[in-house]
């Protein structure tokens, strides 16, 4: 696992290999895995992400009854052509909700990096694949590039895990939705053919915009606000990717952004780190939900 973006970029220049390959080789070395076996596992992960999107059932409700059926509402609005944010973002929003709702309803998902943030990467990656296919992209070439993009996402997540955390209980939601967004931003830049340097700037830009996000799940459940935060994670990843692809750079280097995420996480009161005691969980409505759940 790489521990800094600076090292990763330096090694990339030295060896002149694509980012995804460096990340794959490093993991294969540590885990004593062949490149072929590693590639197959990553391809399976992407397939499982697609399945977690396809398996959506708008009739399902979560155990608390708070989550379910919302992705279908976005679809309806998109099909009417009424979405303010347009068709492509409509797909992204819908997909983020579909996968995250599935998670809350005990269906199968890919935790990437966590179960609570499982909608972000599928929303960004599957929607981009769909878009490129519609524009006449070669399906075989694309499916290869999707797996490569996932490696880049994993490498970014690995650096965040090393420098900060991927757990809401440690650093708040910025460590979950923020990290997922950062991973997806770098993956999206890679998919669009952007340079390694731009992918890293996208990762930094995405995290910066979600810095400080607290983990305040109502009744301690991965439902409210987790499900809908997957939408902002996905959308934020795409805007960060577009900024980076346009040549906008993060004035604070990516490594320092992740270090800042860690400091912010450490400064957060425990009530705001997955305990279900602060923020939205501590509102009048949040407390009423907890009371209702504990009576069941």
């Amino acid at each position, binding site marked *: 696992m790489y521990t800094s973006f600076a090292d990763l970029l330096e090694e990339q220049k030295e060896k002149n290999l694509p980012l995804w390959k460096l990340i794959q080789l490093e993991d294969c070395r540590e885990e004593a895995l062949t490149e072929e076996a590693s590639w197959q596992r990553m391809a399976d992960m992407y397939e499982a992400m697609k399945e977690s999107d396809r398996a959506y059932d708008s009739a399902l409700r979560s155990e608390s009854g708070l989550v379910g059926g919302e992705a279908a509402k976005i679809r309806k609005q998109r099909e009417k052509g009424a979405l303010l944010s347009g068709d492509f973002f409509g797909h992204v929003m819908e997909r983020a909700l579909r996968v995250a709702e599935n998670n809350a309803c*005990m269906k199968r998902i890919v935790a990437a*990096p966590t179960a609570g943030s499982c909608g972000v990467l599928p929303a960004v990656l599957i929607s981009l694949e769909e878009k490129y296919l519609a524009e006449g992209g070669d399906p075989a070439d694309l499916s290869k590039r999707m797996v490569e993009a*996932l490696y880049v996402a994993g490498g970014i997540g690995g650096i965040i895990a090393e420098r900060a955390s991927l757990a809401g209980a440690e650093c708040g939601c910025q460590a979950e939705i923020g990290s997922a967004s950062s991973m997806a931003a770098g993956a999206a830049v890679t998919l669009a053919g952007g340079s390694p340097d731009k992918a890293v700037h996208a990762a930094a830009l995405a995290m910066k915009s979600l810095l400080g996000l607290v983990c305040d799940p109502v009744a301690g459940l991965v439902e409210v606000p987790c499900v809908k935060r997957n939408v902002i994670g996905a959308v934020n990843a795409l805007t960060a990717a577009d900024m980076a692809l346009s040549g906008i750079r993060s004035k604070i280097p990516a490594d320092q952004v992740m270090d800042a995420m860690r400091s912010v996480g450490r400064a957060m009161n425990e009530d705001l780190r997955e305990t279900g005691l602060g923020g939205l969980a501590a509102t009048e409505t949040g407390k009423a939900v907890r009371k209702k759940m504990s009576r069941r």
Partner: protein
Amino acid sequence: MNIFDIVGPVMVGPSSSHTAGAVRIGRVSRRLYHATIEKAEILLHGSFASSGRGHGTDKALVAGLLGLSVDDARIPDAMTIAKEQGLSVSFGTIDLGEDAHPNSVCLRLSGEAGPMEIIASSIGGGRIMINAIDGLSANFSGDSPTLIVHNLDQPGHVAEVTSMLQHKAINIATMQLYRNGRGGHAVMVIECDQEVPEESLSWLSHLEGVEKVTYYSPAEERD
């Protein structure tokens, strides 16, 4: 941590600690029991008790006891499957004390192999810790082949076990020793880098002074 801990695992939601970790606790417990479990009394502690229901922790633990894996789509139906397979399940809460991890559970299992009590916790990201078996500390993760030997507290048992491992070219990753008192009952918990063969386990269990040999193989987990 490897890249598939970050992009992955594939699991049934909603929570890696409250759902996937709970399934793993059930699975490891099932393998530690080594016989058909007929009855399971499941006592939830801390956050497992307070927000377990909404996360399906109850279903996930039962699913694990039935041998389902973390990505098995039948996890939500675990209670029905338990009934079909003749596993009787009951739930309660327990206070395991301030030092216990908030996501902990005490499983009281019974069946062909008699009673067994396992205390385990889900420590984040789907990783778990088996804290105690039958009242004796264990503290292993279930990530590696794990050998647990209960013996009388007398000289030579550690040497017997470690020379057997050496003979089989098995490397020790971690090793812990506990005893309830001088000359009483002792337990050693050894996490290994390689699997321990069946015949070595059987040889160990016949040694003078060795009371019980329990072995956990994670091979099934990696499938």
